[in-house]
């Protein structure tokens, strides 16, 4: 097994035992990237070539030299007998929605293609202080707007390592692919409607959306300020716990970072599930899709192959001593996407106002008559279709004459969605759940180009993940098998506020119980060659 395919936990153990150096870990990662990644995403990339189609394209910017300096520093600390940190020497990728000082921090958009961040996001700073080695900025949907990574202005966009004709999911597509393809052990992504969990599910890795406010957002280029959550993508539950330990906790730069003590996630990991109450909800085994012609909504059951791993997980957890409670109602789940369309767009439109060509980023090179024309041309040139869609919808539903009907109503629906979780998790209530067990996505990874033009259909890929964003509760997606076509399948666990330790613990039990599964021996297609 290559060094780069080890878990982060194992890498750190080897490092501390002086059996591997940070330099060696990094070179292994860089070799893997060299083999599988192909060219990084760039603007004006031209035609996608046959060679492109054989590679993963996780990155927008590789920071190899910077990484080498970081690895060397870790090795020096070790040699000097100092503690280099919980993530010492671990190669990581950072979704390019985070500002990292001295690196192009592009949000996968033309409008920030020339922006070199003058400061580093808190979550990234914490990882670097813990000894992590940042190998590169991972590709994503433009401004995190999407569920397939296809909207990136930096092409080629990432491809699913399990099947390179398929999307990796989004918006943290590059984060998921870089972890799944063994290019890095950990990635820092963001989850606003499922953008960590859904690509994790599509790429067969672990993706954790922490409680809103658990990880500081300072330095995260904002999409939905009340929804965005930075979080880890990793190959194992233990690795996700390790990374969360490093990035969680309040910070004076973020007024919404809750002043809640950070649990010891690793200590709780092996406690098992005896006595835990885990619920199943019929509302999460149902999905709805709009009819493309009539616009009518059809509710249908999730495909059997999506439901099966969840049912199996329930059985396994029951055998391990958990109590499984069926038929937990979560009646407002189906309103998650409509409410999300409104709330996220209002916040996005406002958050994108600052991209005006005045003080950073792209400014139109065309001659302009006046400031208004400069704004229009700059934003018209700089933003792709997805940001424009979100801005315009945001302007529409927050306009004075509509805000009562749409925005205010959506906030009320959010209260209802939250109430579903409050009732399910109420320790004095009817269900008293520690966690809810659900599928992560309505389908496995779809083909590149199959959904992209249809923005509604694309958004509905998030219908099982977005309720957790509205409610703020934490959620984790865990690999649970492969479907008939060899594509990853997953299960999702959702829990009460700040219950990440409990979700990780359940996930770890599940992981251990399925350690011998045949599918775990299969590798992504891109690694089989």
């Amino acid at each position, binding site marked *: 097994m290559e060094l780069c395919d080890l878990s982060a936990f194992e890498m750190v153990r080897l490092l501390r035992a002086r059996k591997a150096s940070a330099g060696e870990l990094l070179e292994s990662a860089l070799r893997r990237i060299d083999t599988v990644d192909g060219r990084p995403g760039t603007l004006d990339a031209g035609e996608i070539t046959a060679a492109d189609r054989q590679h993963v394209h996780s990155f927008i910017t590789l920071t190899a030299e910077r990484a080498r300096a970081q690895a060397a520093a870790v090795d020096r600390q070790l040699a000097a007998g100092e503690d280099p940190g919980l993530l010492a020497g671990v190669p990581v990728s950072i979704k390019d929605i*985070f*500002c990292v000082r001295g690196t192009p*921090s592009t*949000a996968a958009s033309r409008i*920030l293609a020339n*922006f070199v*961040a*003058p*400061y580093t*996001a808190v979550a990234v700073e914490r990882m670097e202080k813990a000894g992590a080695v940042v190998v590169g900025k991972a590709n994503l949907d433009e401004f995190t707007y999407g569920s397939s990574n296809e909207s990136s202005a930096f092409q080629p966009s990432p491809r699913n390592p399990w099947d390179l004709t398929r999307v990796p999911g989004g918006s943290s597509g590059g984060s998921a692919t870089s972890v799944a393809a063994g290019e890095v052990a950990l990635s820092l992504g963001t989850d606003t409607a499922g953008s960590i969990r859904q690509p994790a599910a599509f790429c067969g890795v672990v993706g954790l959306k922490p409680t809103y406010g658990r990880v500081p*957002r*300072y*330095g*995260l*280029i*904002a999409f939905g*300020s*009340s929804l965005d959550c930075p979080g880890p993508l990793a190959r194992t539950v233990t690795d996700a716990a390790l990374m969360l330990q490093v990035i969680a906790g309040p910070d*004076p*730069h*973020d*007024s*919404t970072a809750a002043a809640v003590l950070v649990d010891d996630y690793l200590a709780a990991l092996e406690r098992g599930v005896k006595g835990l109450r885990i619920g199943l909800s019929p509302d999460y085994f149902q999905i709805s899709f709009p009819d493309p012609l009539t616009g009518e909504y059809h509710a249908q059951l999730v495909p059997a192959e999506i439901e099966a791993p969840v049912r199996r997980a329930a059985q396994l957890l029951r055998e391990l001593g958990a109590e499984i409670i069926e038929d937990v109602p979560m009646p407002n789940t189906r309103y998650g996407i409509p409410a999300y369309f409104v709330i996220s767009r*209002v*916040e996005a*439109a*406002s958050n*994108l*106002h*600052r*991209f*005006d060509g*005045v*003080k*950073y980023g792209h400014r139109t090179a065309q001659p302009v008559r006046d*400031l208004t024309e400069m*704004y229009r041309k700059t934003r018209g040139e700089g933003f792709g279709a997805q940001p424009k869609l979100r801005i315009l919808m945001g*302007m529409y539903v*927050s*306009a*004075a004459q509509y*805000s009562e009907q749409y*925005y205010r109503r959506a906030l009320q629906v959010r209260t209802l969605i939250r109430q579903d979780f409050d009732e399910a998790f109420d320790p004095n209530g009817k269900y008293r759940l520690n966690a809810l067990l659900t599928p992560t996505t309505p389908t496995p990874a779809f083909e590149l180009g199959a959904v992209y033009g249809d923005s509604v259909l694309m958004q509905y890929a998030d219908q099982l993940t977005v309720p957790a964003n509205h409610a703020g509760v934490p959620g984790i997606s865990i690999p649970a098998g492969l479907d008939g076509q060899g594509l990853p399948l997953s299960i999702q666990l959702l829990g009460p506020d700040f219950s990440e330790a409990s979700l990780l613990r359940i996930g770890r039990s599940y992981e251990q119980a399925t350690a011998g599964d045949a599918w775990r021996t299969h590798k992504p297609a891109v690694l089989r060659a």
Partner: protein
Amino acid sequence: MTEYEVIIGLETHIQLNTTTKVFCSCKADSWIDLPNSNICPVCCGLPGVLPVLNRAVVEKATLLAEAMHAETRPLSYFDRKNYFYPDLPKGFQISQFDMSIAKGGFLDLPMPQGYTRHVGIWKLHIEEDAGKTVNQHGRRLIDFNRCGVPLVEMVTAPDLRTSDEAAQYLIRLRQLLRWLGVSEADMEKGHLRCDANVSIRLKGSTQLNTKTEIKNVNSIDAVKNAIEKEAERQMREVEAGRRIEAWTLEWDEDRGVLRKMRSKETEADYRYFREPDLLPIRLDAQWKQAILQNLPELPLVRRRRFVEQVGLPEYDADILTSERNLSDYFESAVLAYGGDPKKVSNWLMNDVLRKLNESGRDAGQLRLTPAYLADILKLIDAGTINNNTGKALLEKVEASGKTPAQIVAEEGLAKVSDDSAIRSVCQEVLAESAKEVAAYRAGKLTLMGWFVGQVMKKMRGKADAALARGILEELLQ
């Protein structure tokens, strides 16, 4: 001749004198700084930044709200006001829309004509300032130094009726802001900015007609003049049968004219929504109480007390409550003196105030402390020194910082009341002034003053003048 009533409402933006900006740790005051030097990622609206509320802003806003008799809300919320402007880096201003820190309130304006105008307050909220733009041959120069400076916006009800009242509102407000220590309120430096809303109606009518908004009035005189000009213009328009339109006007200070600004085609839709990056302000009873410990007795309340209880005339009470340091000085001096407060007020308003005006300092910066002033008055009362010596002592104490008693002792300023000492000097003076003595005895009694003056001169001002006069009269008989 139709009689019109002028209806005026004022909107003021008050720059709070906190150390740092409202949402980041840059300085709140950068008046003298180089452009774009007092900035950070947060106030420049860089991608990924977040606002963090300055505690002191809440405290000063609460003091102001209390002084304006407004009701503070235990929970108040920030909202985003979205619009594009180059000096607004985020493309939205963080402000407070419907649930601001305080509601209601009023300010009473005692007018020189003898009545009091009661001005209701419609809005009182916290918001962040934008940067500055300068025009330069078809380009705009942007400076972000001022972005994020904390402001309190206050909007009055349309309760003002004359340009004098509007001026008086600003004067009283400025006084109050300095009194509370929440703003320097210097209009020249933009610490206190004002827009005026003006409409007219027939006297006796109760309806409110279309108003115009006058912006860019940078001094109290400008506010007065602009309002007068606009009221006249509106009356002319109405007399001519034309409608008043809701224009936004700009006051040209140099030419003394109003100019129509680009009219808002539609009322700008700012698409207000709750600021998701900030939590509501929690002003619980405990915190509020702690803040209000710092609420001083307000100027008008103190003014009334000075008149009714201390017995000062209105004119004096006005001056001695115009500025807090002077006012507190007066109170301390009266306390230390223990005698007739009017004596203190006389000395303060004449000699001490003159000194302050000349040097541009405030009463808190004097070395002549209230206790020392009281000492001087007590020395005069005790007869140790006379009035003139007392006035001279003011200077000496201020210059040296020594106590009055010390200086009197060191310079031997004590009044000489020794009869024989004065008597011998009197005899000396009379002996040297035969001509004047003859004239006095012939009936020119006004020469007594001259004789006393001569005695004082010889005794270097230290003689008890009344005693000297008595002795001279005796000798001249």
